[in-house]
Structure formats: structure tokens, C-alpha cells
């Protein structure tokens, strides 16, 4: 399937911008986002949807971009960590990660950011414990989990105070 490099042109909605790109027919979303859109935050690591470093939002839902064909997602809004920030203004999740130093080597961190953001948007009543359970699907080998949880706890209490 790969040798012919059969290409197709698709229109993708990435980080609020609609763009036409030429892709290989069976290209995965992570390949497209990295190669065609130059988005560094999306990183293929395990290749089988386990580790979470390629997490992006598809219409707001967290998905593994290594396990999706780009052609499957041409009618969805795709959001990466870069797209959560608004220019110089970081998203609340990103601010919380910065505040709690929730980064070490940082390879997994954008995926974590996207996952926390998606969880809080999709589950408006999510508890800290539920968020922790959901984050179990994003792996961090440095063991930054304590700081990530501190950031998550802050976000939940900020939401509770606001709500």
C-alpha cells in the first residue's frame, strides 16, 4: 500500500484554520500534523495509541493521532496544544502546568495538556479523582505526575470557585 505513494488532496481544519494539503493516501494524522503543518507538539512514540504523546482533540475529544488516518478526520476540528494557546495568551491548562512546573523532559507534556483540557471541557462536573483516572492514559517516564496532578487540582478548584 505504501510503495506507490498515492497522494490525495484534503482540506483539514487545524487549530482554527482551514487548509488544503496533499497527503499520502494512508497517512496517519500525526504524520500530517508534523510534516504538513509543522506542529511539533504532536509526537509519535508508541505507535499504538497507548502512550498519549500524540494526543490531539477531534471536535474537542481527545484522540490518538497515531491511530487515525488523516482521511478519516477531514470534517472535524483538529486542535493541538499550539492551538489551545491564543497567540501569546496561554490556555488556562498551560498556565497551570507552567505554574506547577509540570514538565521535565517535556516530551509527553503537550499531550497531557491537550488531555486535561479535553477532559475539563467534555466533563464539566469532572472530579479530581475522575480526571486522575482519565490521565492514566498519558504516560510520562520522568515521573512528572505529581506536578501534573497539582496543576489539575488547581484547575478543578478554580472551576469550582468560578461555578
Amino acid at each position: 500500500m505504501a510503495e506507490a505513494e498515492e497522494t490525495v488532496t484534503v482540506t483539514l481544519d487545524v487549530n482554527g484554520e482551514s487548509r488544503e494539503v496533499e497527503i499520502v493516501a494512508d497517512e496517519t494524522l500525526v504524520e500530517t500534523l508534523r510534516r504538513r503543518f509543522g506542529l511539533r507538539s504532536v509526537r509519535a512514540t508508541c505507535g499504538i495509541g497507548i502512550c498519549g504523546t500524540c494526543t490531539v482533540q477531534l471536535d474537542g475529544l481527545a484522540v490518538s493521532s497515531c491511530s487515525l488516518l488523516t482521511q478519516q478526520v477531514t470534517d472535524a476540528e483538529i486542535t493541538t496544544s499550539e492551538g489551545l494557546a491564543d497567540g501569546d495568551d496561554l490556555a488556562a491548562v498551560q498556565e497551570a502546568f507552567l505554574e506547577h512546573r509540570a514538565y521535565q523532559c517535556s516530551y509527553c507534556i503537550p499531550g497531557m495538556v491537550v488531555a486535561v483540557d479535553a477532559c475539563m471541557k467534555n466533563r464539566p462536573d469532572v472530579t479530581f479523582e475522575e480526571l486522575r483516572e482519565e490521565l492514566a492514559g498519558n504516560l510520562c517516564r520522568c515521573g512528572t505526575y505529581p506536578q501534573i496532578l497539582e496543576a489539575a487540582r488547581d484547575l478543578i478548584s478554580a472551576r469550582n470557585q468560578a461555578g
Partner: protein
Amino acid sequence: MLMMRQGLVDPARLVSLERLDALRGVSLDDNTLVLGACTSLTDVAADDQVLQRAPSLAYACQRVGNVRVRNRATIAGNVAEADYASDPPAVLITLDAECVIQGPGGERRAPVREVITGFYETSLAEGEVITAVRVPTWPSASTYHKYISRSSEDRPCVGVAAAARFAGDEIARLTVTVGATAELPQRFDDVTDAVHGGVLDADTRAQVAAAYAERIEPISDARGSAWYRTRMVEVFVRRALEDLAHAHGVAGGVR
């Protein structure tokens, strides 16, 4: 998709059904939950009707893989993949769920138990697709135990689903299915039928657990040897039955 990435299948053409809204969502037909084929596991797990009428199914769907998998995986896809180590099939089989299957010759229905026929094998014929999964809501209590022997993110070493309806203190109906231990989910109605009319006390629970442990010939893999799985079947069938007894308030229900 993963099988494709790993080179296990190399399809010339893929057909996506995900834009068919009619195949998505949960409804109630009499007392049966009707899960549209393309309803994601996330949506099944969060659905109020499922949570009320089949909480063990909601829980099992919530325990599959990670949130990204659950957001994409569908209930029909879960059945059709026939993965021995997946969580929902054991619950679906315990609840007597049926698949609605559309094929070139029309529509038919088949119990999930008969649709899954082996390791990644189903009885679906060429040209057939599952359009819905129908889940009866007969039990007054149901439960699912996912036992993981390694990291929290591991797949089950043993998964046990159990469901019961009681008439007073008596067991009117009891079903138990053990997943992730053999090629197919294991349900032995003769074992559970034998205790109908009795009380789900500690002796009965131990008797059913022992019978399941004896009957199942488990596989061996990195999550546990056959010897270990046999032991875990006994432990988790017993614990699942304790849940049911506890939910029903059986005297001395929980040790």
C-alpha cells in the same frame, strides 16, 4: 486501524461508517437498551439510561483502554473485533445482549455469545454489519470486576461479569461470564442454573466460583499463567457474587 498499522491486515479499501448518525446513540425499546452500532464507548459509559439500567456495562466500557480509545471505539466494533482481552463482551454476554445484523439478505438478530466465535473471529458473514446492540435489563443487580495484574493501564488478566435477579431472598436468575482468560468469554449456565431458587450466601458463592475455576481452561500470557488465572477466576467470581449479594442485602452477604 491498529491491526493495519502492525501489518496484520492490508485492506485495499476502508469504509467509514462514522458519519451515519442513525447508527449512533442509546434508546430504550420496551425494557431493552438499544445501543446504536457507532455509539462510542465513552458515550455508552456516560449515558444516563445505561448507567441506570446496566451500570456494569457502563463501568466495563469506562474501563476499556484509555479515554482516547474509548472516544473512538464503538460498541459494535468492540463486539466485532472479538478481542479476548476486552472488557465489554463479558458484560454483554452476561446480560444476554443481542446484535442486530444487517446483511445482503436483510436483518437478523444473534446473541453476542454467538457472534463472538474465537480469537478475533466472529460469525458475521461477508457483507454483514452490526447496526445495533440490544441489551436486556432483566437483572436487579449486575457487576463487573476487571482484575489487572500489572500496571493500571494493562488489559485484564481476568474479567468477571455477573448479574442476578432476586425473588425475595431467592435467586430467580443468575448469570456469570468470565472474560480475558480463554479464547472466548466463558459462561456456564448449568452452573448458575443449579443455584436458582437458592440464596446467594457464602457457600453458594464459593460453589459457583469453584465450578468456574474448574471448568475454564485458561490461556497463559504475560498477565498470568494458566495456573494463576484459574486461581483468579475463583477469587473474582466469588468477589463479583459478593457484590451482587451485597447489592441485594443478602444476610451475611459480604464477608
